[in-house]
């Protein structure tokens, strides 16, 4: 609410006038120069167009409808204080900006919860969504790093899923036991799935999966996604397929959508800042070529690579929506 001093002034009559010239005028600085970002600035002119301008409105402008109607209600003697109904003003809705998602939310909290649980930690390879960065890291390492299997035979590689525990195990089974006994996790913990255990099931779901792919692909095209991005996404699994597994066993994609009844809390989000660790994982298996160039030219060339990864994370495929 407004300061009380101001309200006093408003009620102070003529004596309380605040001459506008007594208010110090802040210095106006120069127009924003076009960015000195090297050669790139000329190629990409600024897309920003806002300039302050006054708006003149015609008598018949739609903007004036409410007031005009109110005026005529008064002329027709239908205005009384009693009849004026107060109604809650319209509040803006929030929309998930991820292409292909577009879900609407009444509240900011609803949107943030949706975003954090579905789009915050998504594997760029198989589009699974995870409730935390830690679980995503573990997933990438165990599922998409081709060196993992080799390493796991020599040393303990299966990290405990509980963040901060730090113990590592020889096999996923050992880890499961540890989770159940030490951390009292349920035996069917949703995010403790090993790659192998899914293989038998995978063939059955393959057909259904293809349908999902078709749907999501269609949706993406319809919304006019830039083509190169799409190509990038497609290329990722293909490259890794060569390195790892026969094509049809690759990518057992399931919706790891978190059921709405399970809340991981908004505080669990740490954003994408743990880039270093994950990038290391990626170079191992998923073959994002851009990353290898990163050290050569820091700054600009790092960003596209980072975005490829993030693009994968943001991409929400039909599978997530359909389930």
């Amino acid at each position, binding site marked *: 609410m407004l300061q009380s001093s101001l309200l006093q002034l408003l009620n102070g009559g003529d004596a309380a006038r605040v*001459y506008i010239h007594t208010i110090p005028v802040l210095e106006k600085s120069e127009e924003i120069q076009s960015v000195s970002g090297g050669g790139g600035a000329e190629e990409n002119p*600024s897309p920003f167009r806002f300039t302050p301008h006054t708006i003149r409105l015609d008598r018949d402008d739609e903007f004036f*409808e409410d*007031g*005009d109607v109110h005026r005529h209600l008064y002329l027709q003697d239908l205005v009384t204080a009693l009849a004026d109904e107060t109604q809650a003003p319209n509040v803006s809705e929030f929309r998930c900006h991820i292409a292909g998602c577009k879900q609407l939310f009444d509240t900011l909290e609803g949107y943030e919860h949706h975003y954090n649980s579905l789009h915050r930690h998504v594997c760029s390879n198989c589009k699974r969504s995870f409730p935390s960065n830690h679980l995503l890291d573990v997933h990438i390492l165990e599922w998409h790093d081709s060196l993992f299997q080799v390493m796991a035979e020599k040393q303990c590689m299966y990290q405990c899923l509980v963040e901060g525990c730090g113990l590592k195990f020889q096999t996923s089974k050992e880890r499961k036991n540890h989770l159940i006994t030490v951390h009292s996790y349920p035996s069917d913990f949703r995010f403790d799935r090993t790659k192998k255990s899914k293989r038998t099931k995978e063939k059955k779901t393959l057909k259904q999966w293809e349908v999902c792919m078709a749907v999501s692909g269609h949706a993406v095209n319809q919304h006019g996604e830039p083509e190169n991005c799409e190509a990038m996404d497609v290329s990722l699994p293909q490259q890794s397929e060569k390195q790892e597994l026969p094509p049809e066993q690759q990518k057992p994609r399931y919706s790891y959508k978190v059921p709405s009844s399970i809340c991981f809390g908004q505080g669990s989000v740490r954003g994408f800042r743990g880039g270093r660790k994950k990038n290391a994982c990626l170079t191992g298996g998923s073959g994002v070529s851009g990353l290898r160039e990163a050290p050569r030219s820091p700054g600009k060339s790092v960003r596209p690579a980072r975005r490829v990864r*993030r693009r994968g994370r943001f991409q929400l495929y039909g599978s997530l929506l359909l389930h």
Partner: protein
Amino acid sequence: MWRLKSVHHKANRSAKDLEEFKRKRREHEKVLRQARRDRQLISKRLLLNEDEQDKEFMETDGTPVSPDQMQEMLRSVQSGGEEKATHLAVLRKALRDPQTHLIFTKLESSMYVLVGQLSGHNAQCQLEAARCLHELSHSLHPGVGQSCLPATPYLLTYLSSPCAKLAELCLYTLGNLWTEGAVMKEKLLAQGIVPALANCIQNQRCNLAVVEAAGFTLSQLLQDKDAADTVIPLVISSGLVPHLTSILTPDPEFGFGPAIECAWCLHYIVSRAVDTSALLTQGVLSQCCNLLITLGGAVSKGSTEESLELLIWPLLRCLGNLLASGVCEGAGCPVGLEDARLLGALCVFCQSYLSSHFGLTRESLWVLNNLTAGSTVFCSALLFCNMVPALLQLLPFSKGINTMVLRILGNVAHNGTGYCVQLTQAGLLPALCATLKMADPDVVTLSLEVLYLVTANSPQIAEEFVKLNGVSLLEAIQYNNEEEQCLRASFLLDHYLHTHSTADNPS
């Protein structure tokens, strides 16, 4: 002071049951909205007599008058002698029922008789005849108004009558008749309705009921579709504007009815006039500004229930459109707007009417936009008076409210670093983080524009935005399908936020 003197009105007739009244009103509002979209929004007013309050309607309501009865009434008026006035009063009461209007006009020489009484020497008969015509002018049947054409020269003549009651009746009758089609308008203009109104307002300055009536009639004229070509030049050249402006000081005794009418007249003139420079020199701007400040004080004390919005609305429009007319442009502050409390008043309106008259909040913001656009004086004053937090509170509301707030913020930010820093101190960035997530593409685009202004002006602000997890927010926008938004988000990430975001990347 802010008592709206109830114009003796017709709604009282049926407003026994409040719920019923509300329902009726809602339906009526729907009809009016449609009429406005079709550019057919017109209203007529009905003046009731002091002598006939509720009781008398009840008597006439039950029995519909037959054509024969009507003929009989007319005959008795013609031959009435001493009791003519009484017979006219009976006729007038019969005419209160809209169904009798057609019967009356179809009778031979009925209008002739009425005009005869109106132009006669008997003052009481004059008044009663004028009342009959007033009832007829309020008719919904299109032909009835037309049939009153022979009376208009007399109605216009009596505008300068010393009898205030008669002048008032004639004014409301003329205001109603104006809506009766092109022929009527042409006739009234040719018969000099505009100079007659100018004279009336000038001469009856102290009789506020007459002034209110004249204001209403003039507002009817000015609402005409072709007003810009016909009525408005006449009104300006007849010197009405200074008179209208001088009435914008509500009278503590009478209430603010006259001010409402005159303010609407000024709005109709300002929003259509080609050259508004004359209006500025006539003090419209300063008068609107002063009254708005007074009203702001009244509203802040909690008098929103007293229909003040009826006056605030047209004043805001005058101010907004005058500011946008180009006459006020240039450095500094336009003459007449030197009182910074105007900003406070506008903020009070924004907040107080948010739930009851949402459109008023939007229009107050529009005026704030026009004040701050290109004006370092008003932008500084806005910051100085600490109004930014109040504006940020309005960002959750849609339907033109948040876009207008973002425009105002953009106006301020556009002035450079000093302004951007103060905006940020007032809490701009967290508010932008919320608007960037909204569904309305206009809101997102405008938020990106404002974000660009503040981050391009100050790297510290860019840094602060990054701390609020702003980068991931922009990246989410980057991957949506609105190209306008993608471009802007990418540009911001590439040019203003990259130094910060690469910091947490391996290099």
